[in-house]
């Protein structure tokens, strides 16, 4: 057996293990688009409210409607673009064990955080909502990175750190959302495209 042959075999093994246990159809462009959308939307809310702080029930109601709609649109974009990427690169896109694990590991922390935010909003305790969204989103990314691109965990760490910093600040909800869901997604999306998608 030649050296090269042994190396190829090891690479085949590694590739098969990865391909069968990780969901690889996430599109970097979709992350970038979500980041741009989130930046625009938070800038819009800022000019609409004229302030970084969201400190009255009315402001919160408006913000909640807009951000929940943004969330739905964002998931839709990520889903559709993953489907297109899967078709183009002949990757798997079925609700098999891998995708189910990815979705469960992403949506369990995110759902828990979402419920917590709803409870806080209902009790008119607004102060920690922005940091909780970032913290639980970060945890969801870290948790699900095992079943997709491992690099997703770095975005998760960044969101987590930003959320924790935000805990100690008052009245900067919009700014941290802009940084967390806008800027971080744009930066990560660009890195993702350059690292994983440029050569293909």
């Amino acid at each position, binding site marked *: 057996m030649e050296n090269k042959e042994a190396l190829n075999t090891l690479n085949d093994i590694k590739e*098969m293990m990865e391909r069968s246990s990780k969901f690889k159809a996430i599109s970097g462009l979709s992350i970038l688009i979500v980041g741009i959308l989130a930046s625009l939307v938070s800038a819009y809310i800022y000019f609409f409210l004229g302030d970084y702080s969201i400190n009255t029930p009315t402001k919160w109601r408006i913000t909640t409607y807009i951000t929940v709609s943004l969330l739905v649109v964002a998931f839709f974009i990520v889903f559709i673009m993953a489907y297109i990427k899967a078709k183009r690169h002949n990757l798997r896109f079925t609700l098999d064990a891998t995708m189910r694990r990815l979705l469960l590991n992403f949506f369990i922390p995110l759902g828990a955080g979402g419920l917590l935010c709803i409870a806080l909003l209902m009790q008119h305790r607004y102060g920690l909502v922005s940091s909780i969204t970032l913290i639980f989103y970060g945890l969801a990314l870290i948790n699900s990175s095992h079943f997709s691109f491992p690099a997703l965990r770095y975005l998760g760490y960044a969101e987590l750190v930003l959320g924790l910093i935000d805990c100690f600040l008052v009245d900067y909800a919009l700014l941290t959302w802009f940084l967390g869901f806008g800027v971080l997604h744009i930066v990560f999306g660009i890195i993702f495209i350059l690292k994983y998608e440029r050569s293909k």
Partner: protein
Amino acid sequence: MIAHLDGLNKAFESKIRLGIMSILMANESVDFTTLKSLLELTDGNLASHARSLEELDYIRCEKKFIGRKPNTSYSITDLGRAAFSAHIQALASFINTQQ
């Protein structure tokens, strides 16, 4: 293959059997259809290679019904995991001695 090496397992010489083992190493259990599409094989081809690994006790096959549809899924045995790890180890140490 030119020389026969110590530690390399004959059972994993075939690319298909190597693929089956790699996938089952990384996943708790994988059903027949998923395995087939991952390895781009026909039913008969996969079944015969899977059976030969089963006979060696490297993988275990579980047949059940989901509703009325029969569903076959495979998982790796402790013996299979050990044998495959030894095979990978042998490949890696072979590469190291060449460098």
